[in-house]
Structures are given as C-alpha cells and as structure tokens.
C-alpha cells in the first residue's frame, strides 16, 4: 500500500534556509544542503526546496545549489521558485531535481503547465498554490509569494491545472502557515477528494496530531512542514513512529 509522505520544506533565500510566519519575518534556519541530507537520513520521504525570493526579485532558482543538493541526498526532491519556462525546468532537472513546482508563472501563463507536461511528463510537474480564506468563507488564489490576491477560487484553479497536466498539487494555506495550529483541513479535503492527482498539504503543522488529522480527516497524500523540523521542535523519526502507532500507513 502506498504510504503517506512526510516532506520537509526548505525555503531558501540567498542560499540559506529561512522560515517566516505568515509569509513574513524571515528567520535563518541553516545550510539547505546539510539540512536536506540530514532529513533524508532521518526518514523524510521527499524534500521540497523553494527559492522564496525568486519571483519577487526576478531571480532564477540557483541551479548550482540544486546540483549540490542532488549529490548529497538519495530521496526525491522538488525545486520551485521563479520558474517560468520550459528551459528553466530543463536546467533544474539536468542538475538533479526530480520534480519542479510552478506557482505564479503558471497562473499567469497556464500554457506553461501544458508545455511542461508535454516535455517532461506530468509526474514532474507540481503546481504550488498559495491560498487564503477570506471573510466570505471562500479560498482565493494568491500570487507572488502571497503578496498579490486574485479573484480565482482555489479549487477552480487546481482543477484547471490538473486538466492542463499538473501531476501533483502543493497546497499552502496562508491562514495557517507559520501558526503551528494545524493544517487547513477543509480546503485540503476538498482538493484531495476532488482532484485526480496527489495533494500535499502545507501550512500550520505544529504538533504530531496535526499530521494525523491532515492524513485521516483531510485525506492528504503528503504533509509538508518547515520550521518545526528546522528548529527541532518535532523530529521526523518520532513523528513517523507516532503516525505508525496511530495506524497511518507510513514508511519507517
């Protein structure tokens, strides 16, 4: 049986791992290559590296860093941040990334998703969505690292992207990100039960039981977290042991 995945996320700025609260107030969390290798050793199922400043500052994710990472870890990893063309992706894959994630560029140019699927296959195309629940109760898509609101609803964009060829959705709730109060169960469940591709839940994981909730209650295929791992608040090994005890199918 396919196991649920635990995915540490390394947000990278200027070559360092950083983590903020609600998308601001960045704190330094160490060398991404060292951290990635450590997580792989501890039992992480995959890794995600996001160059969070890339879109804003119009910089490309550093392919050299990706190359370095690929030499030190033996599990799959996804790279995102500022990817806007087939050529961007080719360079990252050639440097060792297994999957790439697109966000703002795909929203502005949906054809990109289709082009990537055609060139590299949907299995390596992850669509990242930053979403926020507004006062009207609806979940809206945000762009540029959460700085720009759109009028598009999260589920609508996710469905469209899957039709275009996205092979996986990385869903981050801006309401929950950095709060450690638990994942956004309702929107995660909506996507996980209505889409035909795996959904990674992100934002809000702060205690071990939050992971049980997001797998059992929200039906997520994978759960992503950052600061709790970086600052050693929850270890990957104890977390996976705990999930196993709770009868979640997990790789130990």
């Amino acid at each position, binding site marked *: *049986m*396919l*196991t649920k*995945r635990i995915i540490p996320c390394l947000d990278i700025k200027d070559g360092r791992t950083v983590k903020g609260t609600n998308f601001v107030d960045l704190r330094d969390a160490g060398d991404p290559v060292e951290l990635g290798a450590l997580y*792989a050793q501890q039992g992480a*199922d995959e890794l995600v590296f996001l160059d969070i400043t890339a879109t804003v500052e119009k910089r490309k994710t550093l392919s050299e860093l990706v*190359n370095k990472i*690929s*030499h030190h870890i*033996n*599990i*799959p990893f996804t790279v995102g941040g500022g990817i806007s063309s087939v050529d961007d992706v080719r360079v990252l*894959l*050639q*440097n*060792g*990334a*297994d999957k790439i994630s697109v966000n703002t560029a795909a929203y502005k140019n949906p054809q990109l998703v289709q082009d990537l699927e055609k060139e*590299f*296959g*949907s*299995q390596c195309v992850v669509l990242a969505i930053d979403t926020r629940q507004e006062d009207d109760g609806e979940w809206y898509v945000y762009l540029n690292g959460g700085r720009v609101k759109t009028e598009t609803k999260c589920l609508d964009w996710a469905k469209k992207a899957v039709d275009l060829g996205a*092979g*996986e959705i990385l869903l981050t709730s801006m309401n929950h990100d950095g709060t450690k109060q638990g994942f956004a169960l309702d929107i995660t469940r909506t996507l*996980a*039960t209505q889409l*035909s*591709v*795996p959904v990674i839940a992100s934002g809000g994981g702060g205690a071990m039981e939050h992971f049980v909730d997001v797998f059992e209650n929200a*039906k997520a*295929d*994978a759960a992503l977290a950052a600061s709790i791992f970086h600052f050693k608040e929850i270890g990957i090994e104890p977390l996976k042991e705990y999930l196993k005890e709770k009868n979640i199918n997990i*790789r*130990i």
Partner: protein
Amino acid sequence: MIALIDYGLGNINAFVNVFKRVNVPIKTAKQVEDLDDVTKIILPGVGAFDHAMKQLTESGMKEKLNELVLVKEMPVIGICVGMQMLGKSSDEGNLAGLGWIDGDVKKFDEKLITQRTKIPHMGWNDVKPIRETKLFNGLEKEALFYFLHSYYFKCNVPSDIIATSDYGIEFACAINHKNVYGVQFHPEKSHHYGEQLLHNFAKI
C-alpha cells in the same frame, strides 16, 4: 565498468552518485563507442518512452545494445521507463520497445484504482518478491521503494515476474528474464534499500 545510458534528457546523476558511494566504476554512454569497454548496462528512467527509444535508435546504440544483451548476454537493468522499454510496445508512445522481455506497457486504468483515483502512482510502496533473485539480496522484508509512473509493464510470461506491487491492480514491479532485469520503481531515489539493490546489480 557499468554503462549508464544517457538519452540526453533529464538527470542521471543520482545513479552515478550511488555507485560512487560504493566504489563501483560507472560511466555515461551517449554513443556507440561509449559501449566498447562495458560489462553491465543501466537503462535509466528519464523522459518519455518514444523520446528514449528514438535516441537509442538514432545514436546507433540500440543495435549495439541488442548485440551485448542478446548475443553476449551482458547483464542489463531497465529502471522505470527503462524497464518499460524492455517490452514490445507502450501505450505512452508509438515506437516499438526493445522486446527483450515479453510484455507490453499499459496505462493505469483510473477505474481500477481503489479508494481514490490518483495517477501518477507517486510515493513509497511495498514490493512483494515472488521468486528468488540476486537483485533483492540482503533486502529487508519490509523494504519500500519510491514509485513515480502512470504506465505499468504487463508481463506475458508469469515466470519473468520477480516482484509485484499493488496500486489498484497488482502489477509487475520487477522483472527478470535471463540477463535482463527491470524495476518500475526508482532505486536511485529509494534511500538505502535502493542503494542495496543497485549494489546487488553491480555484483551480478
């Protein structure tokens, strides 16, 4: 020396890194001459079926590989798409496969996938060995491997199947016929289990 076939698309460094760690010599092969002094072959799993087959044919490597594998019986392992290329045909493309193992590659039928319909099959899954093979030497019973695919190998000869996995249907995730091996999962991404398997292949 192991030859790692390079179709010119995607990353194959992961294999090089694994073999470097266990001190097994490996080189990438892009053209026929690169295959002159090799003793084992890896067909990695990058790119689409037709793209990889086209590359093998146009570079002239296909003919040379046929000689090495079928006549000289050199050990070869196909990984993911590389395994699928061992068959005769694939739903993913129009070109013929290598035909070294009797089977055809089919797309997962969403209707057959239980609980929820999710394609690609992505993540860590069980591998159930159904016959003895050197490839699995020293592997723990509970070993899990990383899968990432939408197509699977439908083997026509049951005795060629060495392990199965379950994703809505039970499918052949590892196959072997004489000197030809194939695995659907990615050993180069499957932590120490995968390293053990690749190391086993190097010792065959």
